[in-house]
């Protein structure tokens, strides 16, 4: 951190996609599929070098291809990704700059997990971390692990700051898929047991969000049960410090089979993004952003990075609310602020950042058209016909609450609900027009042939002279014709030539 003058750093590895419309918001910070890195770096003349070195260092540390975050993938968002440590605006913008990058194609696997575990004080030998089992983790519907490094204040004036490392691991496991019922136990889910607690830990709590009512039984009883964040929810807290030995947590429902009820409380804001159009020449991107709140207009920041090989046409940006197009000059136009950075071929991506006010209970659709760029044949990856990944768009819900009220309260239970809620859309796969990879041979040979045809015949014409071939016979004919003075015949003959 010091070597590369990093103020704040957030690195997330994700496999799978968090399904907002089924699972609600994630409890800990999540990200789009692949790897996402964003960092605030102190301003100095080496800032870009530092960023490059940082990605390379992290690449080595986590055995990931982070070094592929080069200038074609690096972005400086203007509105999204505010620092999570304490800051005041003027000081921040004068002294630090934000860099982000993501690799949607990156696969996350055990080689990334091991370095992550190594950062824990007791590795995976004690505490909750002993549940981390690669086999079960990579068998889950979704998992995401992150490292967040940020400065925190040591006193009320914030004169002393300390770095805080927050490591999170989220995974979605579905016991119903295996057994048909929703009974579960820790040992079943992770195939591991918590045997001891990490002696270095100040706190080691295991929290369980359970319904307020229901015909179920949890063994053993929780140390403490408190009211949850939302209605109909309780949080059961198990203090591992008190009873560290062999916590065999399990939950049983008094039912023989389970069917999902569809009355899940949906999150207020979620989004889907997809491609429109067909063919390998041009296409469009469409994003549907849902606001399910019955009475609130929700301000969000939409952030999308489109690689340079999709050439966006900003003048084709259209906004529809509930299927009705909204004119950009109208009062109801939901885009209040738009920041657009056009892409540069082979050097930087296009960035769209928009402050959008989502009307209550609505679907806001953004659509924009693009041309697919024809790449040089060396720019295609070995599996050219697989296509190229386009990273997730990020929707940041701008909360009106004061950060501290919310943040502090939840932090004492060991996890923190991020004050800005970030929603990631699907990553997309785009197929670009591919050349025939043996074409250079055809092109060189055939093109040279045609060029030779041109230069050959042109030089032939320009350097050689015309001469008449006079034979005796010709002269006779000539004389005859001149005598006869038959214009028509001559013309015909000329035309034949």
């Amino acid at each position, binding site marked *: 951190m010091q070597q590369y003058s990093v103020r704040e750093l957030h690195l997330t590895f994700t496999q799978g996609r968090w399904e907002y419309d089924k699972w609600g918001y994630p409890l800990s910070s999540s990200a789009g599929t692949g790897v996402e890195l964003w960092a605030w770096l102190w301003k100095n003349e080496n800032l870009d070098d530092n960023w490059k070195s940082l990605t390379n260092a992290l690449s080595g540390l986590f055995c990931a291809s982070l070094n592929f975050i080069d200038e074609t993938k690096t972005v400086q968002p203007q509105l999204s990704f505010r620092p999570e440590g304490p800051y005041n605006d003027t000081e921040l913008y004068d002294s630090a700059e934000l860099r982000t990058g993501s690799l949607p194609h990156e696969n996350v696997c055990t080689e990334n997990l091991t370095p992550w575990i190594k950062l824990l004080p007791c590795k995976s030998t004690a505490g909750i971390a002993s549940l981390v089992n690669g086999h079960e983790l990579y068998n889950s519907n979704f998992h995401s692990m992150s490292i967040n490094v940020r400065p925190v204040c040591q006193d009320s004036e914030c004169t002393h700051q300390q770095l805080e490392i927050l490591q999170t691991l989220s995974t979605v496991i579905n016991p119903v898929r295996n057994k048909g019922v929703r009974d579960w136990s820790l040992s079943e889910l992770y195939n591991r047991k918590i045997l001891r607690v990490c002696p270095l830990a100040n706190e080691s709590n295991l929290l369980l969000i359970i319904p307020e009512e229901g015909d179920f039984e949890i063994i053993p009883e929780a140390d403490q049960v408190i009211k949850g964040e939302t209605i109909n929810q309780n949080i059961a807290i198990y203090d591992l410090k008190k009873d560290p030995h062999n916590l065999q947590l399990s939950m049983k429902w008094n039912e023989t089979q389970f069917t999902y009820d569809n009355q899940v409380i949906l999150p207020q804001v979620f989004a889907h993004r997809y491609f429109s159009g*067909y*063919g*390998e*020449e*041009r296409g469009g991107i469409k994003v549907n952003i849902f606001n399910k709140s019955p009475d609130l207009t929700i301000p969000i920041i939409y952030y999308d990075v489109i690689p*340079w090989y999709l*050439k*966006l*046409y*900003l*003048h084709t940006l259209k906004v529809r609310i509930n299927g009705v197009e909204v004119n950009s000059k109208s009062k109801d136009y939901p885009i209040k602020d738009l920041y*657009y*950075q*056009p*892409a*540069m*071929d*082979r050097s930087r991506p*296009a960035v769209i950042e928009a402050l959008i006010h989502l009307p209550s209970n609505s679907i806001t659709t953004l659509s924009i058209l693009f*041309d697919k*760029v*024809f*790449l*040089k044949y060396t720019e295609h990856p070995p599996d050219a016909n697989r296509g190229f990944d386009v990273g997730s768009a990020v929707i940041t819900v701008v909360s009106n609450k004061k950060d501290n009220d919310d943040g502090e309260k939840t932090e004492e239970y060991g996890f923190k609900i991020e004050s800005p809620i970030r929603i990631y859309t699907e990553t997309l796969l785009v197929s670009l*027009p*591919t*050349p*025939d990879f043996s*074409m250079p041979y*055809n*092109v060189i040979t*055939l*093109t040279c042939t*045609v*060029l030779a*045809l*041109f230069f050959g*015949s*042109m030089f*032939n*014409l*320009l350097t*050689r*002279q*015309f*001469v*008449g*071939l*006079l*034979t005796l016979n*010709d002269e006779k*004919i*000539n004389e005859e014709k001149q005598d006869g003075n038959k*214009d028509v015949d*001559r*013309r015909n*003959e*000329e*035309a034949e*030539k």
Partner: protein
Amino acid sequence: MSTAIETSIRRRDLVFGIAFITRLLLFQFSEVTDILASRVEVVTPITSFTRLTEGLYLFQNGVPPYDGGVFHQAPLLLAFFQPLSYLPDQFTSLIYILIDLLLAYLLSQISRIKQQLYKDLPRVDDIELIDDNKNEEEESSWVVAGLYLFNPFTIATCLSKSTITFTNLSIALGTFYSLKGNKIHGCFWIAMATYLSFYPLMLIIPITMLLVNSGKIMSRTPPQQESFSSSSSKSITISKKIEIAQCIILYIGWLAVLLLLSFILVESWDFLEATYGVILLLPDLTPNIGGIMAVFKSYPSIGDASFYLGFLPIYSEIVKYMRYNFFTTNIFLYSSLLAPIFYHLWIYAGSGNANFFYAITLVYSVGNIILLVDATFAMLRREFDVWNPKLRYCEVTQR
């Protein structure tokens, strides 16, 4: 006689009228214009109207239009289209139609001037009838305009709103004024053409030659008739040198003015790299009908072909000497038929690959080359006949 001229003028009006109405009607079918505006054969990254719209949109919204990989056209086009963006789309269409008609009119004027100039030149007398007849002159000039206006390539280029039309117009104006001996206008329009698409840079040489001879083509009278004293010929060469210098200075001056105006408009020199840099370095690999034409010009389109094909009928006497007219016509016909099909097979159907389209661009290039070589042959062959009237009916070969 006067009635004959009147009928030919009426015919000319008819040609222009029909051309105008056809274009106006076709502009009403937005599917047709949309398809044409997205065809790689018709528009290229440096002439695309969609990209111009994007550049204009960025410019109007305070985003530097050249700070990105989309817009590669000259800044003054932005200034030209900015007021149009407040008007309905029909005005833009109307402007394209009018430019096309103006181009055709210029071509017919060029044709007439050329006929005047060639009047005193020796010719192959019995095939090329000497026509002092005003009527004939009028007639052939509207044929030239008509052939340009009803060339499908021209119509397609006009409907696609390709900005190559502006380059073509500048070149035509440059030629027209140079033939009239107007140095200031001639150099201005050639500078404008260079400014718009760089390659007309080469035209400064023929234009200077035209201007220096002030429209009088040096009559190629046999040398013995030239009776200049050595002193007068010397003074002539000096005055010619001054004239050449004048032309070149005017050209460079106009070009500098245009570039400076652009700089004032967009407030940076980025446009130089984004326009001329792109033309020279070809970072945008969108396929075009170039194939090997790329060697002579980057990002060619059928708009280029339509323009030089428009000049061909002016030299009707050369066309008579060309050997492969039928062959070239067929090549043009079948490459313009197959190119869209092969492109579709490659990009949309996925059942063909890039070789399909490449092959057809190659055929198109061969067509262009044959036409060019054939025209050169025809010109040389005709000259031979002019100077050797006695050998007219002999077999002629090259040595």
